[in-house]
């Protein structure tokens, strides 16, 4: 609970340090990525099932909501809900067979799934606008169009705090223990009466729905969406955020998303050396903090006490 309060405080006080709309933009992107990562962390960090395809669900959320709102005139709130449900539904349908696979095979299968989704988005340009993307109407809440970085900041900030709260609750519940148990030892979890297939699917669907929601929000916020956010590169980026911040740590996922979203903005000073520095930072962090940023720092703090 202390962590949640600290997060809420950060969200409340951050605007004091945000000087202009560009700063708000970064904060909003951090928030949206953090929401996806908190969800993905339930699957990867807690349930121990690696997915390299979550950008696909992000893309379904983004394009689903964009297409329903822009091409079929749905009110954005309804399209948002429908697109989130669509991401969850797809995860539910494909999850059962795919989650029977283990380790690298699961990684490959989810990677393939994500790639298939991104190919469909790129190819069906009549609906999606193809690789050049499409415009997305703004989000309207009760008749008022949500516009401007500040309004979005509060919406995303509130959603992030809510997502973290729900995630912390889940982890410390029988369902969360079941997820962690099947990560610790699937056979022992089964013998303890935990339906591992059902719980894996649960984490998969939940994380996909969260990714879909964040995707839809991103589309409406940006006002324009391209298939770039649905590609396997973005899937890998999301996993890197989770692992970088610390697997099986909800705040780790938030910190990982924050660092890796803001870092490229800071690294622009390195100009053509940017990629080298970014790759180097990633390697060094994982070599010297193999459990990720937050768990390692937490351990150091405990030791000093």
């Amino acid at each position, binding site marked *: 609970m202390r962590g949640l309060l600290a997060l809420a405080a950060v969200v409340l006080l951050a605007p004091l340090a945000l000087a202009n709309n560009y700063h708000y933009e970064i904060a909003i992107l951090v928030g949206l990525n953090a929401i996806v990562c908190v969800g993905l962390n339930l699957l990867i960090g807690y349930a121990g099932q690696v997915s390299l395809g979550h950008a696909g669900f992000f893309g379904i959320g983004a394009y689903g909501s964009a297409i329903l709102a822009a091409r079929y005139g749905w009110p954005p709130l309804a399209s948002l809900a429908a697109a989130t449900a669509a991401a969850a539904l797809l995860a539910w349908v494909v999850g059962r067979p795919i989650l029977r696979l283990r380790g690298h095979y699961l990684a490959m299968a989810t990677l393939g799934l994500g790639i298939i989704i991104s190919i469909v988005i790129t190819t069906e340009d009549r609906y999606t606008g193809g690789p050049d993307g499409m415009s997305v109407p703004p989000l309207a809440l009760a008749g008022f169009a949500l516009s401007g970085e500040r309004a979005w900041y509060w919406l995303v900030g509130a959603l992030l705090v809510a997502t973290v709260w729900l995630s912390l609750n*889940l982890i410390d*519940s*029988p369902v969360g*223990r079941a997820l962690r148990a099947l990560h*610790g030892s699937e056979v022992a979890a*089964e013998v*303890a*009466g935990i339906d*591992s297939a059902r719980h894996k699917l*649960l984490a998969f669907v939940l994380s996909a729905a969260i990714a879909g929601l964040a995707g839809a929000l991103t589309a409406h916020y940006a006002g324009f969406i391209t298939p770039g956010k649905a590609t396997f590169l973005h899937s890998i980026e999301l996993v890197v955020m989770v692992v970088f911040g610390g697997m099986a740590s909800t705040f780790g996922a938030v910190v990982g998303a924050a660092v890796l979203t803001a870092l490229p903005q800071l690294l622009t000073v390195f100009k053509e050396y940017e990629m080298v520095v970014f790759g180097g930072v990633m390697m060094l962090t994982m070599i010297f903090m193999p459990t990720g940023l937050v768990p390692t720092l937490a351990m150091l703090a405990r030791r000093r006490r």
Partner: protein
Amino acid sequence: MSLLRAEGLAKEFGGVRAVEGLDFEIREGQVFSVIGPNGAGKTTLLNLLTGIYRPSAGRLWLAGRALAARAPHQFAAAGIGRTFQNLQIFFNMSALENVMAGRHLHERCGLLAALARTPRLARAERDCRRLARELLEFVGLAAYADAPADSLPYGALKRLEIARALAAEPRLLLLDEPAAGLNPSEIRGIDGLIQGLAKRGITVVLVEHNMKLVMGVSDHVLVLDYGRKLAEGAPEAVRGDPRVIEAYLGGAEH
């Protein structure tokens, strides 16, 4: 009365018969031991009884009814719990959480309740936590309750597995070599623990190499060799059986 009955139980792995034509009956409240040389099929038998392996042939009855379970978690739901020879601890949790996870079957909790942490769930969690502490106390691990599982010594982990299995309140508890790797004083502790289980009215299936332990606590002993039943009966009767002596002394291992 009979709690578990097996008839013609068999398991083949690509032509190799690990267990073959096994018939036996475990009576309620018994400590039922399974012994035999390495490779006799003891662990395979436990895997068959917990649904980890699907039998190639044969049938199981639990409390007089044909066991319809297929997946291991359904066996657990039917009331069969177990521990593992090579530890299967949830090392990513605390000792207490390991036991709480073992209580999964008795916690009715939907996803939405879990996400929102309803007051009802909060109450149930408190009860679960209390019960888990009691179980840790019962196996002598009260001091470790909040420690991460990966910080516990080996002997304690063996007991933790028992506490976790007990949390599910099984009718039948299968212990796979609970004494392996323990020192004599720890083994005495396990001995006492098993007797405590029996007093609680839990039926125990014990797979064990330590003959002293087996002969001390068992009501009934089943001897396996090459996947077949070699002998069966009261400990004293089995101990004197020449075929058993032959299998043990004639075998390469002991």
